């Protein structure tokens, strides 16, 4: 291509030469164009999320980011406090007239962004849509399948009648409320059209950031704008925090970046117990993993404490069950599975995998997980532990779409995942009941045990706390004995903040709602 000769007549050239200044002009105009106007820094809280929320429409919010966003722009009947406890938001009183009927009174102070007050009729419309049969069924439909009727008793009172008792029902009512005319209409496409009753409204919504603007005055806070940037890469998010481009990074999985981050004078670390459980799951359809001794051997072979100490900066506690120790339903009599390679080897030998001798047989599995660098490292550490008792574990990572597909179809032998922000012990039914085999739930390991199923159903329908607790104590013991999961650890929640941020409180489920109470101090906020 460089064989062009310079024989062309001179007259032709100026036209081509015009290209250069034009190019420059173009670039300049673009550069000016991309310098967007930003609100004042002292009024703006800056955070970064991995993904743009799928939708601001609360009826279709299933991803965590959409739900975190919903906290700011919507109000709901119930919400959750810093420790994950359910609390009233829009609701002011709850009255169970019988185990299947609940009457909820609505506060008067809440207003939509169009100025109208939130009424029982709006609430009814939202839940009718969620349980109903619209052209575009909502992802939350199955939560409301036991709802027989929703009635407006008064402008501020709504009644739900259930066809079956359900101990978890109030948890399902923490969905954001839209005004009646939007709630009964189709899914909202344009984010700016959403009319919410939360403290913030959507100001800008672009490919790379969302900006929220405060609607309801709050003299206790300096935050008038929340700017959410979309930053895919975790490493980059932390670098941006160090560079004072962000005010907060919460629950990054990359803990190695944190070793020195606390040495920075402009950053501050806050820690709280977390509401999450990381586990290693087994596929029961696999002939080898079906054997309980093999599963137990694997559980005893993993040195969780060492991994916690060295890979998680000790910011985690070993887990014994799905529920965290602070949970009301946590069974305090559970003991941690002991790290003991000798027991593992013995169990493997008994299961038909002798370590030495003529018929030496090495079990070989693949471990699937989602591709994120720190998780892959954890998986390698587990594989390393297992190799010491003679189990070969191959680590296979893939993107979320493929990983989820593999796991749901049952084509993964072992995999690691975590439960985050779960509410109440019904999670056991969702994870282990025969009815919950994907796509109807998350029993991805195809656990099927009639005794467990009976217990799970009893627990689900029981409304008395003491009786319910007794059932779930039994379930937790049973699960520990059965080993469908190796429970690995509960990670601590933490937030790293720029020191200019005051009054921030990390929530146990990772939600960011406390941003709306933040005050900014004039303390040095820059690193340089």
């Amino acid at each position, binding site marked *: 291509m*460089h064989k*062009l*000769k*310079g*024989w*062309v007549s*001179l007259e*032709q*050239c*100026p036209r*081509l030469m015009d*290209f*250069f200044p034009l*190019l420059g002009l*173009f*670039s300049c105009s*673009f*550069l*000016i164009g*991309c*310098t*967007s106007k*930003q609100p004042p820094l002292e009024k703006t809280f800056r955070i970064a999320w991995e993904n743009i929320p*799928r*939708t601001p429409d609360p009826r279709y919010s299933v*991803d965590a980011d959409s739900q975190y966003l919903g906290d700011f722009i919507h109000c709901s009947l119930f919400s959750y406090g810093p420790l994950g406890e359910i609390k009233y938001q829009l609701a002011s009183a709850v009255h169970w007239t019988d185990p299947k009927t609940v009457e909820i009174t609505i506060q008067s102070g809440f207003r939509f962004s169009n100025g109208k007050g939130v009424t029982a009729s709006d609430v009814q419309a939202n839940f009718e849509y969620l349980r109903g049969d619209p052209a*575009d069924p909502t*992802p*939350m*439909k*199955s*939560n409301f*399948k036991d709802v027989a009727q929703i009635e407006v008793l008064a402008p501020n009172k709504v009644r739900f009648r259930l066809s079956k008792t359900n101990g978890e029902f109030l948890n399902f009512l923490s969905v954001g409320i839209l005004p009646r005319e939007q709630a009964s209409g189709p899914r909202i496409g344009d984010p700016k059209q959403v009319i919410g009753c939360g403290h913030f409204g959507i100001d800008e919504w*672009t*490919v*790379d*950031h969302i900006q929220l603007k405060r609607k309801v005055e709050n003299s206790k806070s300096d935050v008038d704008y929340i700017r959410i940037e*979309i*930053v*895919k*890469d975790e490493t*980059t998010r932390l*670098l*941006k925090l160090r*560079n*004072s*481009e962000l005010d907060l990074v919460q629950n990054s999985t990359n803990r190695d970046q944190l070793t020195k981050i606390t040495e920075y004078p402009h950053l501050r670390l806050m820690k709280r117990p977390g509401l999450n459980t990381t586990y290693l799951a087994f596929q029961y359809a696999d002939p080898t993993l079906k054997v309980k001794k093999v599963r137990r051997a694997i559980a005893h072979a993993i040195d969780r404490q060492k991994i916690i100490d060295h890979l998680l900066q000790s910011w985690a506690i070993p887990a014994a069950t799905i529920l965290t120790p602070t949970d009301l339903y946590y069974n305090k009599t559970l003991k941690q599975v002991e790290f003991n390679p000798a027991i593992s080897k013995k169990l493997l030998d008994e299961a038909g995998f002798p370590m030495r001798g003529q018929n030496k047989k090495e079990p070989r599995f693949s471990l699937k997980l989602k591709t994120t660098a720190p998780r892959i490292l954890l998986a390698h550490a587990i594989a390393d532990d297992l190799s010491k008792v003679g189990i070969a574990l191959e680590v296979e990572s893939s*993107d*979320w*779409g*493929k*990983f*989820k*597909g*593999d796991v749901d179809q049952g*084509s993964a032998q072992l995999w690691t995942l975590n439960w985050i922000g779960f509410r109440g012990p019904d999670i056991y039914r969702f994870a282990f009941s025969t009815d919950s085999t994907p*796509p*109807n739930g*998350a029993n991805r390991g195809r656990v099927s045990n009639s005794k467990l199923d009976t217990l799970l159903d009893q627990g689900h329908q029981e409304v008395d706390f003491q009786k319910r607790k007794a059932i779930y104590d039994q379930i937790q013991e049973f699960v520990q004995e059965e080993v469908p999961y190796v429970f690995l650890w509960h990670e601590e929640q933490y937030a790293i903040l720029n020191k200019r941020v005051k009054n921030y409180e990390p929530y146990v489920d990772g939600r960011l709602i406390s941003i709306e109470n933040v005050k900014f101090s004039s303390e040095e906020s820059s690193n*340089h």
Partner: protein
Amino acid sequence: MGTYILRRFLYFFPISFAVVFLVGIMIHIVPGDPIEQIAGDFSSKNDRIAIRQKLGLDQPLHLQILRYYTGILQGDLGKSLVVNRPVVDMIAERVIPTLELALSSIFLACIIGIPLGALSAVFNRSFFDLFLMSTSLIAGSMPSFWLGPLLILFFSVHLGWLPVSGRSGFTSILLPSLALSTSIAAVLIRVTKTSFLEQIRQNYVRTARSKGLGEFRVFIKHILKNSALSIVTVVGLQFGALVTGAIITEKVFDWPGIGTLIAVSIERRDYPVVQGCVFLFALAFLVTNLITDVLYFTIDPRIRINRVDK
């Protein structure tokens, strides 16, 4: 010429069809279901079937592809499965950032590469020339995914001068375009030098000099003008490569361009968006190739058009 362009365009349809078809099949075969992304964990089997029907994903693959093509002919690239927006809109809002990055990189490469190349031609075979040639060789060998993080480390983390990533104002475009333009500048230095040296030896330059024209005027009026041809061609080619090839740099700097969109959509199994991007890339590729060919032809009619087919 006209028939040539027409023929290229006629080629485009079966080719793009094949490409979109292949991508479509691959995405469908691989495990991972977009319904997962839409429905979430808590929906029942029947709901999933309903969603599938509504989106037309229950139809046989060939019908889905046929429908997709009738859509394209009507200027409709379909709707995203996950965010429920027209694919055209999603791509459109990312075209500007992508072009912005490509243009500023090219601009930066030009203002670095062309003057340096000219200087190195003027001082040909001097120590300065040797130094420049070595530098351009070194710069041209740096992988962008290494250079990018190093630039961030130095300019953002250590010095704190420039933002780490994102697209917010003038300062944020400097690092990504620097990362992209380094290798282009390296190419430009060499091309400029070669074509300048070629011009300097031409007879008309000698004539101009002997007419008593000043060195500077000779340089501007004759050498620069005539060399512009090959430089423009190279710039054009590099620009085409930039528009499609900046995925890694976009990722390093979280630049909200088309590359980022395609990466996210693959992960979410958002078929229509992936297909739309792929289709658009194929089209952009065709157009840049065409422009380059036409440019060649206009510059030098002796270049036979069948060069492309060889």
